[in-house]
Structure formats: C-alpha cells, structure tokens
C-alpha cells in the first residue's frame, strides 16, 4: 500500500474514532466522569487496526509496546496539567504547554531508557 494512502486512512480512522468517543463522552454523566474521555484510546483503536491489517499482528504488538510508554507519559503529563490548572486562572494555554512539554520529556526519557 502506498505510504501516503496509508497515512490518509490512519488520519480518517483516527478522526472517526475521536468522534465516536466524543459521542459516548457526551452521553456519560456526570460531566466529571465524561472528563475521563480526554484520555481515551480514540486514536489508538483505529491506528492499531490499520497497522495490523496492513502489516501483521506482531507489528501491532510492537506498536502497542510503544503505546505503553506513551500512556505512562500521558499519565505524568496529565497530572502535571492538573497541578498547573489550579493557579492558572482558567486558561487552557499554560495547561496545554505544560502537558505537551511534560509528555515529550517523559516519553523521550522512557524511550531512551527502555530502548
């Protein structure tokens, strides 16, 4: 399969996955519980499916091992985001920056240590 076509399929499937989880999150009550869907596997489900269908189960397993590291980084980054949110006066910008930088840092360190 053409690599660019594969990227396009992954992007479309990822977008549809996010919409699907958004609809479920919208139905779930109370709102605090629906906040959990901010860290749902909405992108991962579709991407892993495309990887397995295009390559192999083993390739999917290798990608999921990488996702374990990304998920640990997401846990650390979202905790930092929650800590930043308290004094941030309701602005999404400092939370987003802190979360993004922390995710990159933890994921980078984990990848370097594990591999």
């Amino acid at each position, binding site marked *: 399969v053409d690599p660019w076509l594969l*990227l396009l399929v*992954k*992007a479309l499937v*990822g*977008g*549809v996955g996010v*919409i699907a*989880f*958004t609809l479920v*999150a*919208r*139905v*779930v*009550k*109370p*709102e*605090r*519980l*629906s*906040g*959990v869907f*901010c*860290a*749902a*596997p*909405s*992108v*991962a*489900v*579709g*991407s*892993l499916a495309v*990887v397995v269908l295009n*390559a192999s*189960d*083993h390739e999917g*397993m290798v*990608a*999921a*091992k*990488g*996702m374990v590291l*990304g*998920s*640990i*980084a*997401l*846990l650390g*980054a*979202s905790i930092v*985001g*929650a800590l930043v*949110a308290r004094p941030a006066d*309701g602005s*999404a910008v400092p*939370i*987003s920056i802190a*979360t993004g930088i922390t*995710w990159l840092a933890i994921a980078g360190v984990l*990848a370097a240590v594990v591999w």
Partner: protein
Amino acid sequence: VTSTADRTDTGTDSSAPDEPLAGASVSALRGLSAGELGIRFAMGAVASFVAGLVAQAYGARLGGIPLALPAIFVASITLEQRRNSRGAMQDQVTGAPIGALGMIAFAFTVVALIERLPLVATLALATLAWAAVSLVAYLVVQLVCRPRNAEDDSDA
C-alpha cells in the same frame, strides 16, 4: 473528549453532593454542534497522521508512542475555554489522569492479546480494560473526595 455546551459556570468543582456517581443521558447529544465535531475530527486526524509519520520514519515501536499523544486533551480544554466553561474544563483536567491510567491498561491488553486473539476481539477487550480501569479509578477518587467536599461545604 467531552463537551458541555450548556455549562457556563465559573466554579472549579462541578460535582453536586446529591449527583449520582455515574449515569447516562442520551438527550445530551442534542447540544453537539457540527463545528465542534469537525474540530475534534481534525484533531484526531492530525494526531493519527503524526503517529503514522513517526511510525514510517522510525518504525512501529517509536510510532506507537504518539498513539497516547495528549492532543485530544489539549483540544478539549481549549474548546471548553472558548466556551467560557471553567467548570467543564476542570472536569477535563481532573478526568485526564484517570483516563490515562486506563490507557496504560489498554496498551498492556493489546500487547498481551493481539497475537492470540482476532483483531476485533483484542481491540474490544482492550477498550473494555480502559473503561473498567478508568471507571474504578474514577469511583475511588469520587468516594475519597466526596466526604471531604461535603465537610468543606458544611464548614462554610
């Protein structure tokens, strides 16, 4: 990945003492706009595209890391800020670490099952693992925090 278009509160704690711990309301779907769904679709597509690019450039193992990119989290809190709904934004911020715990369970489940079970079964079980771990963690947090919030309210 949630949205609360009808909420424009400015408080930081949106849980009411008599609110059920968990439930569902299909009527809430009416408040979703096509524009918001479009933004979320675009963020999901971009995150998947980036993960795919990394996988093509550096292999599946490194490409798996961005599958847990906090892109949807950032999009969600930005949408809530634009809506001036600080309470809803706080829900996203406090919910994200709980969902992230579930994401770790999701990824481990895929690693354990993907070479043993059909793809659909593996992804379904992994999503169930995410939901189960997230729900248990959420309930534990609520049960621990609710008595404290009630005490604070009675003191005030």
